[in-house]
């Protein structure tokens, strides 16, 4: 018998705890958690990182990240992150926020954090719905999309148009790196992973505000099975929310 060579191809990132998450089966929060954790591991910054959880399905993210963590009031994570970063410029600070959190109740805080060029990283989970409260319309809900508070489908004449946050924030001079990616298949997940890594590098280089928007699923409130919801994301959200680099300042390209 020859020697068995073990090669480790997959393990839990150090930046994740071994807690079981409360997320619904098929939810992409787990994927985005892992991508963030891998980035922290790869950059060797776990020990000096502080995360901020939002109000929303990822409110308990602090149990899953093996990182110092605070929990913000609904929408206020960018303000909290600002306070942390200003008082501790040598720490790495990131927020993890849903679309209700970031694009509705917390619109003011995210716009001004980006405008100031706050040197923080934002992971923005756009699942086009309010997950935690049971599937109400979000500012990102698509036209015609049915939710518990738009039962006939989002009517633009009543609810207005969905907000494209990456595009909006890209117009601000303080934004250094604003990109949108999708988690609907492996190819896209890999791209998202690279973007998250870049976003943290932007912060480490002190270049200013960085945000990665991740188009995500919510099988439970979309009332679809996991595979259907990935397809729905691809066929409906991706066309409306163009993927790619919405704002990348030159200094980021040199990283």
């Amino acid at each position, binding site marked *: 018998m020859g020697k068995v060579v073990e090669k480790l191809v997959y393990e839990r990132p150090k930046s994740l705890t071994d807690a079981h998450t409360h997320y619904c089966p098929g939810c992409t929060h787990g994927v985005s958690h892992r991508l963030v954790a891998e980035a922290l591991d790869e950059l060797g910054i776990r020990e000096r990182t*502080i995360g901020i959880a939002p109000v929303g399905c990822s409110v308990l993210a602090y149990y899953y990240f093996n*990182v110092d963590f605070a929990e913000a*009031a609904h929408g*206020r994570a960018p*303000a*909290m992150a600002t306070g*942390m970063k*200003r*008082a501790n410029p040598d720490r790495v600070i990131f927020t993890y926020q849903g679309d209700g959190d970031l694009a509705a109740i917390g619109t*003011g805080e995210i716009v001004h954090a980006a405008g100031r060029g706050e040197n923080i990283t934002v992971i923005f989970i756009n699942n086009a719905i309010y997950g935690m409260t049971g599937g109400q319309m979000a500012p990102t809900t698509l036209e015609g999309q049915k939710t518990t508070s738009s039962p006939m489908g989002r009517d633009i004449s009543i609810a207005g148009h969905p907000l494209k946050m990456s595009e909006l924030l890209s117009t601000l001079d303080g934004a250094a790196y604003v990109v949108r990616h999708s988690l609907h298949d492996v190819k896209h997940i890999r791209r998202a992973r690279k973007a998250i890594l870049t976003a943290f590098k932007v912060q480490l280089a002190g270049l200013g505000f960085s945000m990665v928007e991740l188009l995500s699923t919510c099988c439970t409130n979309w009332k679809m099975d996991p595979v259907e919801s990935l397809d729905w994301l691809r066929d409906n959200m991706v066309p409306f929310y163009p993927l790619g680099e919405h704002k990348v300042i030159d200094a980021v390209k040199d990283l």
Partner: protein
Amino acid sequence: MAKQLWKGNEALAEAAVRAGLVAYFGYPITPQTELLEYLSGRMVRLGRAFLQAESELAAINMVYGAACTGVRTMTSSSSPGISLMQEGLSYMAASEVPVVLVDIMRGGPGLGNIQPSQADYFQVTKTSGHGDFRPLVLAPATVQEAVDLVYEAFDLAEQYRTIVIVVADGNIGQMMEPAEMPPMREINGDRPHWALVGADGRDHRIITSLELGAERLEALNLRLQRKIARVKREQVRWKEDKTDDAEILVVAFGTMGRISTTAAEMAWEKGIRAGVFRPISLFPFPAARLEELSQRVKRILVVEMNAGQMLEDVKLAVGKDYPVEFYGRMGGIVPLPDDVLEAVERVHTEL
């Protein structure tokens, strides 16, 4: 240090700097704005964090973020701004991070006006956010006292891991008076055992106000209540003047306490024995001492720049059968000593 002439708001700001303020976040609002303006230069020159936030909502949450990392941090505002900060105050109370807040009250409700007022007594002592919590509330009557209280407030906030509100009205914020500054404290880099600084060589730490289990949330509440009980035992503060052989006791806080002291002197000249009881800690309210004094005097007269808010705490302290009179003005009107004297005389004729 010798006494210097200081404007109240700027004196409060400098005292905070000397107490070791690391990060200030605020939003302009009269009659508090000079505090923010003063710090915008002073903090930056010292290499400390200063940021003018986009709103009071953002400011208080910036403070919350900085507080989670265990540094000395504060904000300041005035009545409408404090309303916006209530969300953050509630979260901070629940997660037990220390914070100092200066409230320079103005006339309300609504946008009200920018004149001095004490109409937010309820807001700071009883309704500063949702849920069961009580900040420690300190009310100075002079610029010197404001300086001393804000300097000490940071220690108290850390000692109890609580919110300390230094509450004054526009008079104290705006007027100039001689005051002596306390010495400059070194900022030591040490962070408390609960602070978030990065999980280096230890388990990760979490600061949250969320407790999903009813039992666990009740346990948190019980802990907060024990802390409040401790504050009640240890931090009751007041000042008395001519209470020894008074027949009428004027109870007033902040600016009105000071004006009432002048009025009491005038009363004595007219042969009316009036003493003054000035609560300094509005929460915890100095109820026990007030109750004691009420046994010695014949009448209590509460004087406030509001419709009678502290009045409720006074009545609670002395009981419903005790004769408590009230004189108050609203809308930013500051009673003069003569006005208070008149109220004292009115009470005296009824004796």
